[in-house]
């Protein structure tokens, strides 16, 4: 995604705005005209709005995926437009490629998204050998993949290396890097619900991030997603 010459502030503001819409959609029924589509349609700067859709990766489908319903056609079309506007280039960071592939997978097969493409599996193999710090840093950047229905080799790896994910959460918390802590805690919540050993209690982490973290809408979205991913909530669901 060619962001190097982009008006970064406008793009960042659009990411916050879309994250807020998505967070709202986690609490309320998804509007009939779609969350993502509505965000793009209402935006004064369409290009920035489409960039925001790409930045948030599969999180743009979080309300649908967490509710266990298919993303609506308007939202799928808006994401397809964003992928056309900002195609993944060969020089992109691997996380950007993975997140774009996951978005494309949801669009192509909304009933059973499978992000486990060839590229993905290659990355998982590379990640499997990374030390815990590099592993956790990479996973934090791929946190929009930590969603039910967004199956991936990375998610399986996170389950197998759940202690390293927890170590990443603890490191981020000690560094007071609450956005990273929230992103990694999403992976912990996801894999804890899939039988991984629970080394770290997430409830106090979440409470601390809420109390001490910034007012970023994106972080609030991460926290809301991870609360819905906690094993207790999954059992209720």
């Amino acid at each position, binding site marked *: 995604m060619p962001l190097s010459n982009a008006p970064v502030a406008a793009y960042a503001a659009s990411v916050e705005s879309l994250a807020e819409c998505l967070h709202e959609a986690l609490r309320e029924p998804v509007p009939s005209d779609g969350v993502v589509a509505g965000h793009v349609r209402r935006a004064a700067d369409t290009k920035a709005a489409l960039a925001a859709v790409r930045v948030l990766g599969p999180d743009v489908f979080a309300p649908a995926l967490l509710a266990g319903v298919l993303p609506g056609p308007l939202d799928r079309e808006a994401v397809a437009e964003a992928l056309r506007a900002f195609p993944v280039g060969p020089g992109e960071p691997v996380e950007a490629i993975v997140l774009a592939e996951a978005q494309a997978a949801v669009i192509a097969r909304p009933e059973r998204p499978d992000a486990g493409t060839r590229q993905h599996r290659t990355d998982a193999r590379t990640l499997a050998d990374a030390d*815990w710090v590099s592993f956790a840093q990479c996973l934090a950047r791929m946190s929009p993949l930590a969603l039910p229905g967004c199956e991936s080799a990375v998610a399986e790896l996170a389950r197998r290396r759940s*202690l390293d994910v927890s170590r990443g959460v*603890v*490191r981020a*918390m*000690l*560094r007071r890097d609450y956005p990273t*802590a929230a992103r990694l805690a999403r992976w912990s919540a996801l894999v804890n619900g899939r039988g991984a050993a629970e*080394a770290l209690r997430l409830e*106090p982490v979440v409470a601390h991030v809420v109390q001490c973290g910034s007012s970023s809408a994106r972080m609030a979205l991460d926290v809301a997603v991870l609360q819905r991913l906690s094993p207790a909530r999954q059992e209720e669901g």
Partner: protein
Amino acid sequence: MSRDEAVERRDLARQVSARALGWLHRNRHLGSFPADTSAELADPDGVYKPLGESALAAGMARRAAGVLPDEENAARALLEFGWDQLRRGDLLYERQLRYPAMTDPLEVYAPFAAAGYRHGRLDGLLAHLTATGSYWAVEQLPNRRLAVANAARLTGLPVDGDWASLTEATWLGRRPEPWLLDWMTAYCMTHTVFHVTDWGRRPHALPDPVVEYLTHWLPVWMEVWAEISEWDLLAELVIVDACLPQPRCTADVWRRLASVQRADGLVPRDGKPVDSGERQAFTDHHHTTAVAVMAGALTLLRDSDAVPVD
């Protein structure tokens, strides 16, 4: 861990420890009491406490004589120097006599006693005082209670209280949120481990849940304090690792410590510049350098129990 990494870890531990001990030995005169020092010790942290730390480091180097053979003379000389400074134990005796409720004479005495330096009248006084209820009722932080208990154990005195309840009373004993550990509490945590395991002599003395807790989070604490160049705390965390049933410290941690050690052996306490005056440098960095001796010696002593090579 690969075989190469295990060899590198061992080599670096030996190098850092030997150089640090050399620095403590060569600069020992900077840690001398003023001529008119009495048992009141207006500034106990100035000379008195570092003498105890040097004795502890030297004692550990002697324990590791099998793997640090070239350092035995320096270790012995350092213990001799410290014991001379304490007037062959008279100063400790006079201080304990003057202040019956104070525990520091026993704590400073312990590493000397463990190395064979005994003072008959002090032994008698301590046997009497530690038999009183008052000695164990002195108000202290839980990890400090363990320090006194272990000093008594090292000196051959009975300990009032059981180790399990003493451990449970500490921060570490409760195994709280590992992300709320702050710098000061980290030192309390390291000392809990040092005293319960008697500086690695009893690596199985910690309760299993505490060992699991440390195995989970020690790598994180090492990483975050290394990132901000807190070398003193990092070296203490390496000792904690070496006190566990199966040490896991990586060669990378030793690379970091070795990279900041000066050619003369001084290990700086943090990332700030070292004062050019030798006396100030000794005051500032004596503790870290002593801790580096211990970390290296214990790493070598526990090497056969460390996580197996691939």
